[in-house]
Each structure stands twice: as C-alpha cells, then as structure tokens.
C-alpha cells in the first residue's frame, strides 16, 4: 500500500535557499513528519527539523505544508493525492535558521513581557477553591501547545516585521485573556494588553483560530471578550471617574 511520494522541501539558511525535490517511499497511515524523517535517515542526514512528541502534544513540528500552516506530525498523507507533490516550507513569519527550523525567539520575548499570575492568599486550610465552571475557559486557553502557528498566520506580523515590537500576537492575547478570566488573579492587565501588547491592532479576522491545532477559539473566546473587557475598563464612566479613587474589582493595574 506504500507508494513513492514526491516532495519539495525548503533547504537553506538565512542567506539563501531553495525548494529541493525528493522522492521518498511512504507507507500506509504515515504523516508528513514520517516522510521528512525518512528523507533524513536515507537521503538528507543534515536536514534540520524540529519535533518531539510526534503526537500533536508538544507543538515543535510547525511548518507550512503546501502553503498551509500545520503540525507535520498531525498531517496525514492520505489528505493528499498520491500523485500530488507535497511542498514543505518553514513558517514564514519567523527568520529561518536552517531548512525547516526557524528562529521563534520572538515568542519567548513576548512571554517575558507578560506580568505573571498573582493570586491572593489561600483559604485557611491552605487549599484554594475554584469551581469547575469558572476554570473551564482558562483551561481551554491552557490547551495551547505553543506551536506558534497562530502567530505565524496573523497578518499583522506576517510580512510586517515592523509591527512585531508592538504586537504580542494571538497566542499571547490568549494568555492575557486567561489571566483576566482567572478567578484568583489580582492583577489587571487590560490596559497593558491594549497598549503594550497591541490588542488594538487585531481586527478579528479569525485566521489564527483557523490554524490552531488545538481548536482553541482564539478570536471568539479570548480576543473578542478581551477587547470588550478593555472597553469596559476604559469607557465605563464610573470606572473612568473612579479608577483613581476606588477599584471596581479590587485588582491592581500592572
């Protein structure tokens, strides 16, 4: 049931590169990452590629398959016609290091800019009580495997290097939203999300949601509610007036 797959894989580094043609035998049930591994083992031993779990859990193997941002380990070859040539290229939004590996440090920088979780004191018995219903939204966001495919896809920074300093990207809007909705957090990051993280630059096109392998409703469940919360904070006349005097929700603005 196996067949010879024809592939084009981007080979190169920061300076230059090209799509190199390969033909590689593949077996039933295989995914794109299997084909890439077989290439590595038999034809291109120095082909650079990231992977860890091979089960869609670690978010390492992000790339673009026929131009579509995907996890290589979750992209089955049966999705393509056996006659079709599959083209694999690195994520476009990040500088390439070598072959399919790119420099994703932008994301780690954005993570550092985000003020941490700050809970209040626990209950007298040392435990913390939260209801399942209240943690479910946050749990949806914490399914994120940091594959950075959403970051790669977002048009605000794809092909717009100049926007990167002021834009944290959908993965981190998710994180702002998660913390904002956390029942125990005492920080108010709404202003920061809007200004420093660039939430305002997002025009809710939902492209990020479409590529998320964890099926997180990034736009509907995180970004839009977060935008509303920012608006609440800024234009609610009572809060506006009173924000210097008393805090409506007793959180500390960071």
């Amino acid at each position, binding site marked *: 049931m196996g067949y010879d797959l024809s592939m084009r894989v981007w080979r190169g580094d920061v300076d230059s590169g090209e799509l190199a043609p390969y033909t590689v035998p593949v077996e039933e049930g295989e995914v794109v990452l299997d084909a890439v591994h077989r290439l590595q083992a038999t034809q291109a031993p120095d082909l*650079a590629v990231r992977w860890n*779990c091979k089960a869609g859990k670690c978010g390492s193997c992000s790339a673009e398959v026929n131009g579509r941002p995907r996890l290589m380990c979750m992209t089955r070859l049966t999705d393509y016609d056996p006659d079709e040539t599959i083209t694999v290229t690195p994520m476009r939004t990040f500088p390439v290091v070598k072959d399919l590996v790119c420099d994703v440090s932008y994301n780690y920088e954005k993570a550092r800019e985000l003020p941490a979780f700050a809970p209040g004191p626990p209950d007298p018995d040392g435990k913390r009580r939260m209801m399942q219903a209240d943690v479910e939204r946050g749990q949806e966001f914490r399914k994120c495997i940091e594959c950075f495919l959403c970051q790669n896809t977002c048009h605000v920074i794809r092909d717009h290097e100049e926007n990167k300093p002021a834009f944290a990207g959908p993965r981190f809007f998710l994180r702002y939203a998660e913390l904002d909705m956390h029942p125990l957090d005492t920080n108010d990051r709404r202003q920061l999300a809007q200004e420093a993280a660039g939430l305002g630059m997002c025009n809710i096109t939902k492209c990020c949601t479409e590529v998320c392998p964890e099926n997180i409703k990034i736009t509907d469940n995180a970004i839009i509610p977060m935008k509303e919360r920012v608006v609440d904070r800024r234009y609610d006349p009572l809060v506006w007036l009173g924000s210097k005097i008393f805090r409506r929700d007793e959180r500390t603005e960071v």
Partner: protein
Amino acid sequence: MAEFERHSYDVVVIGAGGAGLRAAIAAHDAGARTAIICKSLLGKAHTVMAEGGAAAAMGNLWPDDSWRVHFRDTMRGGKMLNNWRMAQLHAQEAPERVLELEEWGALFDRTPDGLISQRDFGGHRYARLAHVGDRTGLEMIRTLQQRAVALGIDVFMECTVTEVLTDDGAVAGAFGYWRESGRFIVFETPSIVLATGGIGKVYEVTSNSWEYTGDGHALGLRAGAPLINMEFVQFHPTGMVWPPSVRGILVTESVRGDGGVLKNSEGERFMFNYIPDFFKAETADTEEEADGWYDDKKNNRRPPELLPRDEVARAINSEIKAGRGSPHGGVFLDIASRRSPEFIQRRLPSMYHQFKELADVDITAEPMEIGPTCHYVMGGVEVDADTGASAVTGLYAAGEVSGGMHGSNRLGGNSLSDLLVFGRRAGLNAAYYAGRLSESRPQVSERDVTAAGKAALAPFSDAGRVDENPYTLQKDLQATMQRLVGIIRTREELTQALVELETLKERAKHIQVEGHRQYNPGWHLALDLANMLLVAECVATAALEREESRGGHTRDDFPLPSEDWGSKNLVLTEKDGVVSLKHQPLQTMPGELQQLFEEE
C-alpha cells in the same frame, strides 16, 4: 584553540522538564545564580507529553487517603526495591508541591467542592491523581515554565551538554554545543543538577521522543556517579499499535482509570486470569466487583486492569503470544462500550483526538488496539534521598534520570510528583552547596575543554574509514534492544545482546556525518549515540546479572522473584569505557514504616 563562549553560574540545571524547572526555581529561590540548559525549545521537554496526572495524597475525594497509604502503594508497586526514604519523602511532600503549582497559575480539574479533583490509576488504592483532562504534563510544564520566566532565570535552549567537567572529583562545569550554530559553550559552575529524563529511544517501540537518549545517565556515569536499578525498564501496557508510523505512542492509563477494560480477540476480559498472588487480596476477581469499585471503593476491590503496569504489560504480551491478539498484533482496549461519548470526550479529549487524527478510530464508538511500549526507566543516578546528591561532589540528579524512588516498577502518576518533590530538593541542595563553597571553587581545566571539543567534532573527521550512518546505527541498536532486552528476557538473549552491543560500539567509532555544524541532526544523533550505547550496555549488563523476575525485569529462565535478590540493588560504574557492576544491600526501613506492610 579558539576561545569558546563561557558563562559562570552557581547552579546549572541540565534539563527543562518538570524536574529541571522545579530544581531551577528552588535554586533561584535559595539565592543561587541559576541557569537552565535544554536540548529542545523551552516547554517541549518530555514532561509536556504526560497525560494522566500527578499522584498526591491530598484526600480531596477520599479523606482516608494519607501519605502512609501512598507510601505503601508506591513500595508495593516497586516490589519493595524502592529507596524507602525517597518513597516516604515523595508521599509526604507531593500534596504541598501540587498545591504550589496552583499558586503559580495551574488550573487543575475541580471536585464539586472546588478542590483539585483526583483520578484513579493503577496500583493506587485511592483516586489520587491531580489532573487536567488528559494533558496534565502540559499544564505542569507550562506552569513551571511561566514561573521560571517570571523569576528571570536564564535559559539556554537548544543547547546540548556533552560533558560534565570535574576538578579533583568535584564538579567544575559543563561543556556543550548550540544546536543552532554548532558552536561550543562552556559553563563554569560548582553545582550541576542532572534532570535529563530517560533512555526510551534505545528501544524500537517507545512512547519516548528523540531526546530520550540517556544523556544524563551517561554524563553522570562518566563523571563518576554510579547508576542503580538499570535492569528495570517500564513497558507501558498500552501504546498504539497501528498504523505503523504511530506504533508506541502512548495511550494513557486514564482510559483504564476511567473505566476502560482490556479484551482479547475472543472478547474475553482476560486480566482476571493474570492476578498474581502478591496482589490477590486487593484485586477484584469478578466483573461485578471490579465494576462496582469505581463508585464504591470500600466494598469492592480494584479491577485487575488497574494492576501495576508490569503485570498488565506481561499479561498482554502472553495473550498476544497465545494467538489471542488483535489484527495488528495488540489487544483491545475498550471504553466505548462502557462510558458515554460525552464522558469520554470530556475526560479523555486528547486520546479522542489522537486516535481520530492518527488512526481513524473513534474511541467513543469502537475499541482501540494497543500493545506494550517502552515508557520509563526506573534506573538512574544513585542519589541521596534527602538532597538528591550523587556520589560526585556537586553533582545532583532529579526526575527520571535519578534512580531509587520507584524501585523495580513505577506507578503511574508517581513520576510527575517525583519531579516536583525531588526537583525542588536537588535544586535547593545544589544552591546550598554552591553557597558554602565561597571562593574556593573547583576549576575547569583547559585540557578537559579541549578534549571535549575534540570528541564532539570526531564524527566530522574523515580518517579514510568505513562510513557509518548514524541513523542506521540507531535503528540497529533499537532493533537489538527490542529483540533481546525487551519485556521478557533470557540469559542467552542477554548474552547475545552484549555481543551485539560490542559490535555496535565498534561501528560507532566509524560514524561519518555529512554537512556543517549548523543545526545538523545527523551530527547531533552521532553524539547522542555514544550515550545510548553506554546506557544500553548498562541495562543489558544488569539484566543479565539479576537472576529473578521483579517489576520491570522479567526473566523467562527465572520467572519468580527471589528473596535474596529482593534485598539488593545492582550498582553500575564506568571507567575508561568499561562498565562494571556490584551488588549492594538495600537500606533497611525503620520499624514504624515496616509496620505499614504488616497490618494488611
């Protein structure tokens, strides 16, 4: 010789899984200037793949649970070969460590009272695993990673350590390379915490990733730290078997914890035929009792599907051998006929996803095909229970790379909690030691640095020899281990394995890699292979010596446990490439703990 990039720290933690991150946080909190080094990107370590949960006797659902019960379960699961002090500390401190994660932002599933929910797992008397659906490891690593970032701890990612450097027997530093550029890097530090995880990649069918090449085991051994319990390798009973490309990928034990059962091709729930005497008293012997247990643990005993992993893996192996396997060489794991689709999707979302996407199987409608897969190594660097210190001054180890805690078999869920408890202890003690040293730190010798650099570049040097491809060599090593040092072992096969390993070692000297130093996986693998070969030899050597069956070590020629063997560990050391082995009596458990095993 060119000047290498150099850094100086009080504590260097090698590994950014649960153990490494927790160690780094502890070292940082103790005031040490701390660095974390890891082979992959931050957040991608193996811990991210853990599914089921972290075991901690919090008693949120079963108030009768306590550290004593957890301790007892752990020791019995390890067939009493565990370092009792580690098992004790682990059971005592796990609840606090799990609660601490909440402090740092973790969102565990809740009980109706709003407390952390706990789930059933094999070998645990009570529902004890704190979890988030079936992606607990992700929650844990993200929480620790976010904490470490918030504390501003330096992280060197995609950086691989190839040598621990010593000065007069004490840790002086570490040598490594950046994966991206291939350039070398030297760390000067008096304290190193090894937190590099396991060795599963030496087997063909494994749930482990490319990183599991036994680096820390080999680094420790070469620096002079003995390994213990290396004959004990855990084969998880339930790995995917089909399609071939996903063979070995884990199917979490939570499937059974949440009600799934094992069946053979005749539809028989065969685990009832495999209840060993050791666990008879606590295991249900009828389906009614087994099914009643999920809701009423007082009046029913545990289903045999939830026996410790070594028992279940062996049973599956026997069924397949007896010709009662599934079409693709496994057996059936069925939750579809036992729980509602809604329940399954809520409790096991990533299993649902994994089977749907990778195997076209809807686990809410049909059974899964599963079979044993190499999962975890019980053996590792021998450490002091309280401090995580190895025999080498300044060298600490925590997590899967350390040995002793789990004895001959680890219970599910006990690893994640182990990482937290002993990661913290190792980090603290590494920091204390560095603090006490003041000015008189061991020095990195230039000679060692030059030698380490030369060794790392060896695969590039073309001395006109036969070329060996590192990928082929790895495949051959995996085949040897799978065939001869697998679940069921014999003297003949183990002897043969050692012969084949010698040949492989010889071939490894002729590895020739292509391309440049920049992000070159062929080169990286060539360097990892040296470690894999060394740990493989340790596993086979110890397995040949131990003439009994216990936990993760089953000898067809010695099918029963023996009292004599039950009182000792096998300790491995290495000098000039030669592995040697000695017997060492277990530490005796104090009377008050022994009592826990007498009152049945």
